[in-house]
């Protein structure tokens, strides 16, 4: 299989998944019982506003395809005069609708929150990967020793820990030492350009540590097991026989091969990390996308919920696609 064919085939399958998610996202918010307008709009809205929503989403049109219009007008294009088409058209224009609680477009709302979620996820991932890899290799190298058992024990505990509970415990323990919520101290004037960053870092510490611990638990066990598997390969014996020290074998042969699964797992875990971030942001009032989603659930702000979910799903699918490509570049053995 040539590389270009391979890449485009993978791209095609991911596009199909994406199309399924977009379609699902549309139908989930329409198929449920009740008037779609009543669901999309707050009951306190004026009739004119409701009518506007009705038009904006084409809610007076059929759901899927417009058969009557096609028969009447005799044009094939009238077939797509439907709600689903309006939804796709708005999506293509980058219009995710209007949040009716925040009085602004969903896209703007997401734009104002996404940076903080990225900051949280990247920091948490970085710390989690760093410690997970280092301790995972150490545990595999000294398999069945006390060090290994201790590392595995803490890895298992971190892995078994529900992220929200871990967050609550850290929050309770660190009361007074770290700010309990938000991302910045309100109503404070800073003396220099570094202080705002320091302030954000202080707010970031607890949520990022919670996420890092959560991911550490998953990474350390995976790295340990994949290193163990690599270390039982015959080329490790060959490397040993050549007279390389264990440290050299680990560094030059084991680390490289054992880190391969990690590429996929970091991408696959992005969904898991985002799920954790929703809970962690809720606990620490970190105003990112997860917190936005939580607020939207409470306020029944469906356009926001729909928009954030779509963005999360698209990012995870895209990350997996990239990981797939990276993996096949790194490991020539992967053909399919």
């Amino acid at each position, binding site marked *: 299989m040539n590389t270009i064919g391979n890449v485009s085939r993978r791209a095609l399958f991911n596009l199909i998944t994406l199309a399924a998610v977009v379609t699902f996202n549309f139908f989930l918010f329409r198929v*449920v019982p009740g008037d779609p307008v009543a669901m999309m709009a707050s009951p306190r809205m004026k009739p004119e506003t409701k009518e506007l929503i009705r038009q904006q989403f084409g809610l007076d049109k059929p759901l899927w395809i417009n058969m009557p219009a096609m028969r009447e007008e005799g044009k094939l294009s009238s077939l797509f005069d439907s709600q689903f088409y309006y939804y796709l058209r708005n999506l293509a224009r980058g219009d995710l609708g209007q949040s009716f609680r925040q009085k602004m477009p969903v896209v703007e709302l997401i734009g104002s929150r996404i940076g903080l979620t990225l900051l949280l996820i990247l920091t948490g991932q970085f710390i989690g990967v760093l410690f997970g890899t280092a301790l995972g290799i150490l545990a595999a190298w000294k398999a069945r020793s006390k060090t290994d058992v201790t590392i595995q024990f803490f890895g298992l505990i971190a892995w078994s*820990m529900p992220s929200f509970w871990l967050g609550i415990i850290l929050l309770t323990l660190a009361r007074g030492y770290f700010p309990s919520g938000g991302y910045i101290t309100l109503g404070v004037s800073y003396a220099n350009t570094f202080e705002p960053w320091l302030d954000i870092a202080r707010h970031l510490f607890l949520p990022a540590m919670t996420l890092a611990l959560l991911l550490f638990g998953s990474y350390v066990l995976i790295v340990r097991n994949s290193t163990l*598997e690599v270390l039982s390969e015959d080329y490790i014996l060959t490397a040993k026989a050549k007279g390389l020290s264990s440290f050299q074998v680990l560094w030059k042969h084991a680390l490289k091969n054992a880190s391969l699964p990690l590429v996929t797992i970091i991408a696959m875990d992005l969904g898991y990390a985002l799920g954790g971030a929703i809970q962690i942001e809720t*606990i620490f009032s970190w105003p990112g996308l997860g917190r936005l989603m939580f607020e939207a659930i409470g306020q029944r702000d469906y356009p926001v919920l729909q928009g954030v979910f779509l963005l999360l799903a698209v990012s995870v699918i895209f990350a997996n696609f990239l990981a797939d490509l990276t993996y096949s570049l790194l490991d020539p053995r992967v053909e399919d």
Partner: protein
Amino acid sequence: MIETEYSKVSFFQQYSDRNQGVIGALMLVLVVMIALFAPWIAPYDPYVPVSATTEDVLAPPSREHPLGQDEVGRDVLSQVIYGARISLLVGFAASLLTILLGCTIGLVSGFAGGRVDTFLMRITDGVLVIPTLPLMLVIIAVAGRGIGLIILVIGLFSWPYTARVVRAQVFSVKERQFVMRARAIGVSSFGIMMVHILPQVLPVIFASATLDISAAILAEAGLAFLGLGDPTLISWGSMLNRAFSRGAVSSGAWWYLVPPGFMLVWVTLGLNLVSNTIQEIINPRLRTHHLFDERKITSLLGRLGSQLSSASSPRGTKQ
């Protein structure tokens, strides 16, 4: 001809020889007992409303209430005990659905191979990449918070991993001699699958089932914590939701915050220990390796230490 079939006797023997497996199993038995005998163990019935005074609100542990009281004066210990029922119910019911779906798809995919396999694995990969918690969140937020729907949603979207693992195992089994022989004497495909392949795949299914249960329990807890649990039932997740949103953190009511989470960790840790043990038994490559030598390790550590100190000393002399 060496064929590594798992004989049942040696599997259980190997399992019972491993401390972490035995500890994990005992941890689970304890929780199942608590759930089964909840009405006899719990000092109060947490579903019966209580008439409480302001002194009962988030009251610390006392003789009558060993784990204190919640924000409306109910006994926390009783809620923790009854909560085991909901968490285990969701865990077992949802993972049963997951395993049924995952096994069927994995077995069919692995056994049939070819186009059927490609088709099923594309679907599996498709479901695998959709972020599960956000997905469950939007479905339950829109469609309602009943326990049945929660079980259904968790079960319906957690199977891809199981399907992948089962498929891989079927692939490794189906070309072996005993399957070939069965095929040669005319056993039907279904018969081969049920009689010859399924038993070989069972340990793998069991290992991933334990992970499915813990994932389902954590998923329910996560949803309930975000306020999307069944409002009529008490689960560990819904307890933490109430504790967190009704000021248990600011008033430092650890007796309300710690026990439900501790139980969640207890169950998932038990399941993870069991799963880890099974994986170690069925994957011999996880047992030992070419660098594995106790004496060498200690001498190596010494050498590594001296290498590190010699590497850092030049910098020390320069200063």
